[in-house]
């Protein structure tokens, strides 16, 4: 029996916590940048945009999500190095690892550190430098987030496990390959409006550019009529783990993200427009073969139930959300696990445009992991940053057209559902 979204124990923070500033590096592939360079870039962005500024010495503690600098860069013990490069030494800084939910978990640690009363000002963020390795190497590193004893020997890769989830969803519901592709088209349309996105272009723009390049080089020019035509061309969009193709997968990305958390009682010292942590939840889950259902992530349902209970709100109250679309099927399942749509109704919502920027339930206005990029350890806090900007009405051309925006949600998954963190943010 799946977790009921209304069954969680109602936990409360010891005192309210607010987000007062956010910073993000550009997301993309940057050959010569390391984790520390990316994180410094995000931190500088935070300092430049913090409405009333801060003395770095006033930051009392830090939690940084990072999945695997060890395997990606040959660098362990990353937190103190980042503290040094931010000029924060001897402030205590701790690295948090929960695969792709590393910075979602780091944010929760920061929230709890303030809620406990121990600290008033905490930096949380995440970073990943992934592009040093070839795709095969990245595949192996990401697969190490799955069960190395019973999933990896069976040949299951990270896309492979989501491929199996997609197949199970297709068998059980009306889901088809086109639904998956439409999620990608939507998220690229949003990414085109996000200057920090790795793919700051719609799929229509990308295919037109490829046609123009082919014409310039005098080669055969592909005759793609539209995005669907392009995505259904096996040369342009090869299989990765059937039924998932290249454009169903989030890219390999370098990037960093950070936000400044403070006790709500002092938020006015930093900004007139704080965003409050209304609810937060986190849960663990088992490998797919031991899951209760093959079409849902139980940890997501449990984390969402906790966050809804703490915030005292229901799924239908959420006005904008960033969900963990590491694969297109993951976004569809997320919108069902979060209770936005009934199980199996996610694909129809995509068809009807309900999750688009101008739909009634905008999902992944940043471009999502798919188009914004997915530097795994940085993604959870990057989702919070997009929601922070949306709730403050400063998301520019991708601002959702809702004048009464008050509640946003983030959904950050580690591995294939081993970890899920859900946060609910409220405009101050």
């Amino acid at each position, binding site marked *: 029996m799946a977790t009921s979204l209304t069954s969680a124990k109602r936990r409360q923070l010891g005192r309210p916590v607010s987000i007062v500033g956010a910073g993000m590096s550009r997301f993309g592939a940057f050959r010569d940048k390391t984790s520390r360079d990316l994180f410094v870039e995000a931190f500088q962005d935070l300092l430049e945009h913090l409405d009333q500024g801060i003395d770095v010495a006033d930051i009392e503690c830090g939690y940084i999500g990072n999945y695997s600098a060890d395997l990606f860069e040959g660098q362990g013990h990353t937190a103190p190095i980042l503290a040094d490069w931010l000029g924060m030494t001897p402030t205590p800084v701790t690295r948090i690892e929960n695969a792709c939910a590393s910075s979602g978990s780091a944010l929760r640690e920061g929230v709890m550190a303030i809620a406990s009363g121990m600290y008033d000002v905490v930096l949380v963020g995440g970073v990943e430098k992934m592009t040093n390795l070839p795709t*095969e190497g990245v595949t192996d590193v990401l697969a190490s987030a799955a069960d190395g004893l019973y999933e990896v020997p069976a040949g299951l890769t990270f896309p*492979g496990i989501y491929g199996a989830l997609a197949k199970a969803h297709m068998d059980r519901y009306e889901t088809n390959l086109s639904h998956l592709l439409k999620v990608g088209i939507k998220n690229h349309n949003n990414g085109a409006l996000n200057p920090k996105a790795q793919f700051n272009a719609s799929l229509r723009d990308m295919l037109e550019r490829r046609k123009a390049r082919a014409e310039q080089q005098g080669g055969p020019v592909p005759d793609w009529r539209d995005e669907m035509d392009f995505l259904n061309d096996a040369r342009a969009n*090869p299989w990765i783990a059937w039924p998932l193709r290249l454009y169903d997968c989030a890219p390999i990305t370098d990037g960093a993200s950070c936000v400044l958390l403070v006790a709500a009682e002092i938020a006015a010292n930093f900004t007139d427009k704080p965003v409050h942590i209304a609810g937060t939840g986190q849960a663990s889950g088992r490998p797919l073969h031991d899951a209760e259902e093959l079409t849902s992530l139980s940890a997501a349902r449990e984390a969402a139930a906790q966050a809804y209970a703490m915030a005292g709100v229901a799924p239908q109250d959420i006005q904008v959300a960033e969900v963990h679309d590491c694969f297109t099927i993951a976004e569809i399942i997320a919108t069902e696990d979060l209770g936005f749509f009934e199980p199996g109704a996610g694909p129809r919502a995509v068809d009807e445009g309900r999750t688009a920027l101008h739909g009634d339930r905008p999902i992944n206005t940043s471009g999502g992991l798919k188009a914004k990029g997915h530097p795994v350890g940085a993604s959870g806090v990057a989702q919070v940053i997009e929601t922070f900007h949306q709730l403050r009405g400063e998301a520019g051309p991708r601002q959702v057209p809702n004048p009464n925006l008050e509640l946003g949600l983030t959904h950050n998954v580690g591995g294939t559902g081993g970890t899920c963190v859900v946060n609910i943010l409220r405009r101050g």
Partner: protein
Amino acid sequence: MTEEPREFNAASFYAYLKEGQFMGVRCRSCGKLSAEARPMCPACHSREVEWFRFSGQGQLSAFTCISVVPAALAEKGYGRNNPYCSGIVTLAEGPRISARILGVDAASPQTIATGMNLALALEDLDEDKPALAFGPA
């Protein structure tokens, strides 16, 4: 003289597999079966577990055909032009497990059907990196 019982861990699981046996564990307290060799029952937390031999019969519950492959399978010749199939198998005794699915055409996934009957297939077991594998029954 009775044989010393093997420790409940993955080393024993794969040693049994190399001997042609798919051994999981059964909880003596609550009866829960696990296809993984666990030293403690995750349902009732009892440490009174015993080896349980699975029949090797099952059904394919979900699968994927993988074209971008991990290094270990690239060494065996799999890749973009030669995908392989992995899946979730629901065992006749109830539990599910991840496994390689052999004897199917991974380049034509539409020919592979969830629900198909499977049987343990250990003919091609790799001595160094043993993996649970099933094929059409």
